[in-house]
């Protein structure tokens, strides 16, 4: 059984079909690409898969469980975590605390433990701040752990978002243009980190990317969207050489 199954998913905004009849399946531990020109509907797909928008048509399943129409909160608890194209960090909190917020649901102590600082509080805080540090180290952010998130350079902010998403220990990680705004060196390094994350955490990743070259180097399979509909899907090298896809991209830039 595939980890994520999307069936005929679609959404309409006041007559505009932002996404229409999208179907795809992602296997466990796969690194899958969702690409297409600007405005194709990629982010909208993520918003549906994370409960920000309710799909107008279709359904999606995680490990066979239907999550269509569930809230963002429930969907994250079921195992889908994401990053945002326009970075959404907790800017006035430290880098470490950003990840600690991601660990919230895994901590055990209750409000009274917190107010009275019971031994359970200390044990939990210690254990999870260690885990936060480990996650930060993966993204080379450990030395910045006490910096305010808004003071981080752009590239590191993107990484911190991935660390925070991973902190919720998801089964499926959705990355929305993680390399946007990065220089080629940073991008190459990020791609390495994404591969590393996939191995270390046995993670399944669905990645939105605008840049075709980048996708080629990292995704086994892709779905290409244009005006909300699927242009091509399948093995990356094949799908990207599809004449319609080439045309859509040439028309875009």
């Amino acid at each position, binding site marked *: 059984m595939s980890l994520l199954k999307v069936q005929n998913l679609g959404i309409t905004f006041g007559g505009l079909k932002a996404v229409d009849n999208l179907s795809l399946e992602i296997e466990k531990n796969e690194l899958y690409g969702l690409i297409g020109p600007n405005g194709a509907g990629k982010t909208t797909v993520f918003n549906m898969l994370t409960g920000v928008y309710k799909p107008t048509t279709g359904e999606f399943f995680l490990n066979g469980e239907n999550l269509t129409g569930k809230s963002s909160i429930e969907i994250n608890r079921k195992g889908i975590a994401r990053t*945002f194209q326009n970075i959404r960090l*907790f800017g006035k909190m430290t880098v470490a605390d950003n990840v*600690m917020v991601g660990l919230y649901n895994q901590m055990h*102590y209750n409000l009274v433990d917190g107010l009275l600082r019971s031994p359970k509080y200390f044990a939990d805080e210690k254990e999870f701040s260690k885990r936060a*540090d480990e996650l930060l180290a993966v993204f080379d952010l*450990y*030395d910045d752990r006490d910096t305010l998130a808004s003071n981080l350079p752009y590239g590191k902010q993107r990484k911190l978002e991935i660390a925070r*998403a991973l902190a919720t220990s998801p089964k499926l990680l959705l990355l929305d243009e993680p390399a946007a705004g990065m220089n080629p060196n940073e991008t190459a390094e990020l791609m390495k980190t994404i591969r590393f994350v996939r191995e270390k955490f046995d993670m399944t990743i669905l990645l939105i990317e605008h840049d075709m070259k980048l996708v080629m180097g990292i995704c086994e399979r892709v779905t290409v969207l244009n005006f909300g509909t699927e242009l091509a899907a399948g093995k990356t090298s094949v799908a990207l050489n599809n004449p319609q896809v080439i045309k859509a991209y040439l028309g875009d830039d």
Partner: protein
Amino acid sequence: MKSIINRKNITRLAVAVAIWAVIALLMATGIMSRSLQSLTIKICYYVMLTLSLDLIVGYLGDLSLGHAAFYAVGGYAGGAFALYTNLPFIPTFILALLIGGVVAAIVGFLISKSILKLRGDYLAIVTLAFGEFIRSFVKIIRGLGGTKGLIGIESYSSRIVGFSLSYIVVLLVIIAIYNFTHSRYGRAVTAIRDNAIAVESVGIDIKKMKVLVFTISSFIAGMAGVLFGFYKTTLNPSDFTYNLSIEVLVMVVLGGMGSIRGSVIASVVIVALPELLRGASDYRMLIYAVALIAMMMFKSNPKLVKYTERLGAAVDNLKKSLTRKAVSDKPSSGGVSK
């Protein structure tokens, strides 16, 4: 293993006891004038009001203009209990404090549940209306004294007792708020202020968090109302006007929003200043306004903010190099170098 009993906390406790001892001594010897003695009690319940409103405004990032309502509910509930029961003073005081806090918390819980969807201006307007509603409500309830007020709440046997009890309550509140803001709950609340959508994306129920903050905040404001009632022995609907809510909001803003220390300092200074500079009390509202505008201009000026941040960092570095503490162990995974 970390625990509550460590050197830092023992020092803090010692400082708190020392402050109490000095003030109590000044009171006992009569060096402190009667009006200054009353001022110490007033500062205590203002500190609680400011701290509790800061949870909503500074930490959660919502604007409430009706904080006096919870203060009134707590004051009246605790005051009525004290008035209509016949227990020795200390049990009366403790029970009144709890009853005032709990009744205010229940009201805060219900209110926050019903206004959850509101944000920004709408929330501010509804809280404002709610504050006025509570004031009108206590006015028409005869058992609560109506417009004449709730008269004859048992008073402290002396100002030292009043100050000491209020001081203990404030300390407990400060500890509780500190612990709250440094727990996973407090972090989630601060995160909501910074980015609510991202908080939901990591599986945290922001509605529950908001209700939690409003409930805790109104519990503390309610207890502040009880302290006020015992101090003043008479509660009047006119004690709980919109002006008070604004005054406390000014303290929160001047305290820097989202800062326990700032809230305490701002409320001490703002409560004490007009009394210390007698003549200036006419200009109190003017001073607030000017201070508020200055603070807002300061906060919205990136250069000034950057400057203070640099200043803070420099102080931190200085502290570090003075103490030269060993840095805690680093995690093993990943290529970290320092």
